[in-house]
């Protein structure tokens, strides 16, 4: 049965529709795979196997009647940031304790509406704050990929490390993820998977535990560009419960994959080179440019001069919003409560015990930058920089249809490598944060392997609401790169 887990989502949906196999069969195959792999990879923090089998059987009944939605019977994983009705949701934090939501996030509800099956909840950095999955209260996720040079456990990236690892290791056909500064695209790049952060407002944030409201956006991690398009189509859509949700037409994303990209203009920003970036990434980027040219694209050199301020800007705005968003975890109504002799002590003990170090660091930074006397110098200034960055992009959109960059400045690194130095860790987001700050869509596509046999990704950034073009270009890139490598199943 293990071959069923190797299928792409698209192939699995075709097989289900053709009744080549049942949802129960493919769901069981994934459950087996998870049981074997999870002790090594730690991708799932809450398997919901019984629930999955019930959903699968219900899907099979619908399929037997010739009914069923666009994801009917497909087993998926859900990042633990998404509230799932009746299933514990922790956002990777101790402070939520055994919190079981009485509601389903809009994005996951959309998947179930279309017939998908939930295998379980996926590990992640605490409150989505991290780039290596090491801030999770549930312990780090392990990347299924290993370096040829050593057997050291590698990070799958973060914060959607569980999602990326599970998809890369065939522990689900696809997974939900979220991206505040690169949390979909960086782990996708580190695991040889495809991850797209759509336009801000494309997916509802309702029912997703908030990190930084103006930057958070849900998206899928998938095995192929087409799979990502199928998942995003289901996850997206206007939701009146989220005031920042966009009430716009929802394009048929999968139909864009495979479309000709001839004549599209690809911008290559000169600022997307950072000190210490491995030559292999530079080489891959140049290779990507050649592939796009070969596919009929026009390559345009562009400048995005404020790029260098994006990371500092992000690390003011995101913690500021987070410091306020996380105030509700006060030990009063749900989750962890650590008692104290006074109200203040109760707050202090609860939050000291409940939050990990990275979350505390960001709450402190955020509180600081919003404080009287610092607000203008940090927060207001960051908002101005954010505007400048957006203007950079607005200027180039007249000249180009999309922008090609590396996804990350390095391949997956060993767990523990960067834990000591948060600033080095923050550099992981250097190519991805601009899309969050400006609300533009960005996709990471696996494009090659480095000398140690580890996957590397290239990123395409598109105009707001123009995911269609990105899907076409990402499909072309995927074809050209011909990336077929899979992690060796060392855990089985």
């Amino acid at each position, binding site marked *: 049965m293990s071959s069923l887990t190797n299928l792409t989502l698209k192939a699995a949906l075709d097989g289900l529709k053709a009744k080549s196999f049942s949802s129960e069969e493919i769901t069981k195959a994934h459950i087996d795979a998870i049981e074997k792999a999870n002790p090594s990879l730690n991708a799932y923090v809450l398997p919901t196997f019984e629930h999955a089998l019930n959903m699968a059987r219900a899907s099979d009944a619908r399929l037997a009647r010739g009914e069923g939605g666009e994801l009917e019977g497909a087993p998926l994983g859900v990042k633990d940031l998404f509230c799932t009705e009746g299933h514990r949701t922790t956002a990777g934090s101790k402070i939520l304790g055994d919190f079981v939501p009485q*509601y389903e996030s809009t994005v996951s509800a959309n998947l179930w509406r279309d017939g998908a099956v939930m295998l379980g909840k996926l590990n992640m950095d605490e409150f989505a704050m991290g780039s290596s999955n090491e801030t999770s209260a549930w312990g780090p996720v392990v990347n299924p990929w290993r370096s040829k040079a050593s057997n050291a456990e590698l990070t799958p990236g973060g914060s959607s490390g569980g999602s990326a690892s599970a998809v890369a290791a065939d522990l689900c056909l696809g997974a939900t993820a979220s991206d505040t500064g690169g949390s979909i695209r960086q782990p996708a790049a580190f695991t040889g998977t495809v991850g797209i952060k759509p336009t801000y407002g494309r997916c509802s944030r309702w029912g997703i535990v*908030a990190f930084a409201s103006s930057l958070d956006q849900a998206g899928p991690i998938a095995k192929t560009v087409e799979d990502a398009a199928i998942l995003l189509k289901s996850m997206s859509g206007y939701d009146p419960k989220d005031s920042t949700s966009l009430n716009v037409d929802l394009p048929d994303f999968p139909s864009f994959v495979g479309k000709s990209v001839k004549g599209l203009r690809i911008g290559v920003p000169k600022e997307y080179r950072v000190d210490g970036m491995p030559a292999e990434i530079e080489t891959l980027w140049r290779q990507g440019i050649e592939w796009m040219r070969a596919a009929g694209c026009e390559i345009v050199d562009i400048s995005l001069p404020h790029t260098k301020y994006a990371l500092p800007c992000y690390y003011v705005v995101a913690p500021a919003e987070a410091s306020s968003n996380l*105030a509700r975890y006060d030990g009063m109504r749900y989750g962890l409560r650590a008692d104290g002799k006074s109200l203040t002590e109760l707050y202090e003990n609860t939050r000291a015990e409940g939050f990990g170090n990275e979350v505390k660091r960001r709450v402190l930074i955020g509180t600081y930058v919003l404080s009287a006397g610092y*607000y203008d110098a940090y927060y207001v200034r960051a908002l101005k920089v954010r505007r400048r960055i957006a203007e950079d992009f607005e200027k180039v959109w007249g000249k180009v249809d999309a922008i090609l960059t590396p996804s990350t400045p390095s391949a997956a690194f060993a767990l523990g490598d960067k834990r000591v130095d948060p600033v080095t860790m923050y550099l992981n987001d250097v190519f991805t944060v601009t899309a969050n700050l400006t609300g533009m869509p960005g996709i990471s596509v696996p494009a090659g392997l480095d000398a140690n046999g580890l996957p590397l990704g290239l990123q395409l950034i598109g105009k707001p609401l123009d995911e269609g073009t990105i899907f076409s270009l990402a499909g072309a890139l995927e074809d050209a790169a011909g990336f077929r490598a899979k992690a060796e199943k060392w855990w089985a």
Partner: protein
Amino acid sequence: MTADLAESKLIQGRTGAWEIVIGLEVHAQVASKSKLFSGAAVGFGAGPNEQVSLVDAAMPGMLPVLNRYCVEQAVKTGLGLRAEINRTSRFARKNYFYPDLPQGYQISQFDQPVVGEGVVEVERDDGSSFEVRIERLHLEQDAGKLIHDLSPSESYVDLNRAGTALMEIVSRPDMRSSDEAVAYFKKLRTILIYLGTCDGDMEKGNMRADVNVSVRKPGEGLGTRCEIKNVNSFRFMQQAIEYEARRQIEILEDGGKIDQETRLFDPNKVETRSMRSKEEAHDYRYFPDPDLLPLVIEEAWIEDIRRSLPELPDDKRKRFMSEYGLSAYDAGILIAEQARADYFEAAAKGRDAKLVANWVTNALLANLAKDGHDIEASPLKPEAINELVGLIEDGSISSKIAKEVFDRMWAGEGSPKAIVDKHGLVQVNDTGAIEKAIDEIMVANPDKVEAVKDKPQAMGWFVGQVMKATGGKANPAAVNDLLKSKLGV
């Protein structure tokens, strides 16, 4: 304003006269069926935590969605305060921890409120008026309620009120006495009730004020102010300001200085007490709420709302004075409540409006107050007053008899006509009958007839005798005329 009036507001201290400077921040609960950012019901009297949505309880992943109706009420109020409506405003988060604040922040408006500067004209009891400038009106969420007296060791939280829409209406420091502050607060309440944007129920806490008080020597710059929190009655406001002004004057006259602080009014001890000093004040870390888009209000919507405005108290007062010829004082009493004004207008149909106004503002209001009725629940309908005044106008009864008729009406004896008929109270207009009575009295009292020639004021005695002889039913004007001619005075 005359110099006398201005000086009468000053208070004397040991070192001379002091002026009080007062500004009010009024919190008025929006009269809305649901909360500002959630669909949960708003209402008084529900069981604890029965009106709480997932958003109000700040469950993870919940998001606020602005209630359009509440915005409409704020705009309506802004128009009623003759204020500028800001086409673009923003919601901001005010961050602090407290168990009655589930989100850990209150969604409020900070540097971009929905309503900007306006003005309220306030009448004093003596009929003069003054203006209070409005600095701003913004929308914000109310907090929940902590209950400390159910258990010796625990406190309980009721979130029913959490998330309810409040309008905070901030005045400039334009009031100079506790009387002026109370008059402004009353006027504001009247306007809100007219507009229907707040029910003005102070007992339920639906309208309350933070009172900023400072004192200074006349002509000097503003002194350091103290803020008295959550004052929820006119009387407490009066007492709190008077106590606080005295307290500040004493400190200053003793050579001390005022600490800027937040104080609480204790109605039992009739004093204000320090709650927290400026140093202890929270740093609220206001910033724009990223869950909400800027609030953009279309001009066309503002115009729609403007067209839906009811007649406001000031306009009504002016109309009552011009249309009905009422005095400013009577008009002021009648417009103080919309229902009262409506009552008056119904009662005045086709009648001498001044006479109707007298009956409403005197006999009716006094009886209502005595029996504890609102005018909406008045046992006497406007039609009854209209009929009563009609009887006076056509000379059927005198004003004096009318009072008796009114008392019988109040006692439930029926319509004015029925009472007049039943008790034979119709006024005697028959001059023959009155002449006959006068002649009899003159014959019986020749000495008094003589005396009145030197002392015309003594005619009153004859009037009394005639009225007595006719059972009070004689038309007083006719009695006077006939007496004058017969007595030759």
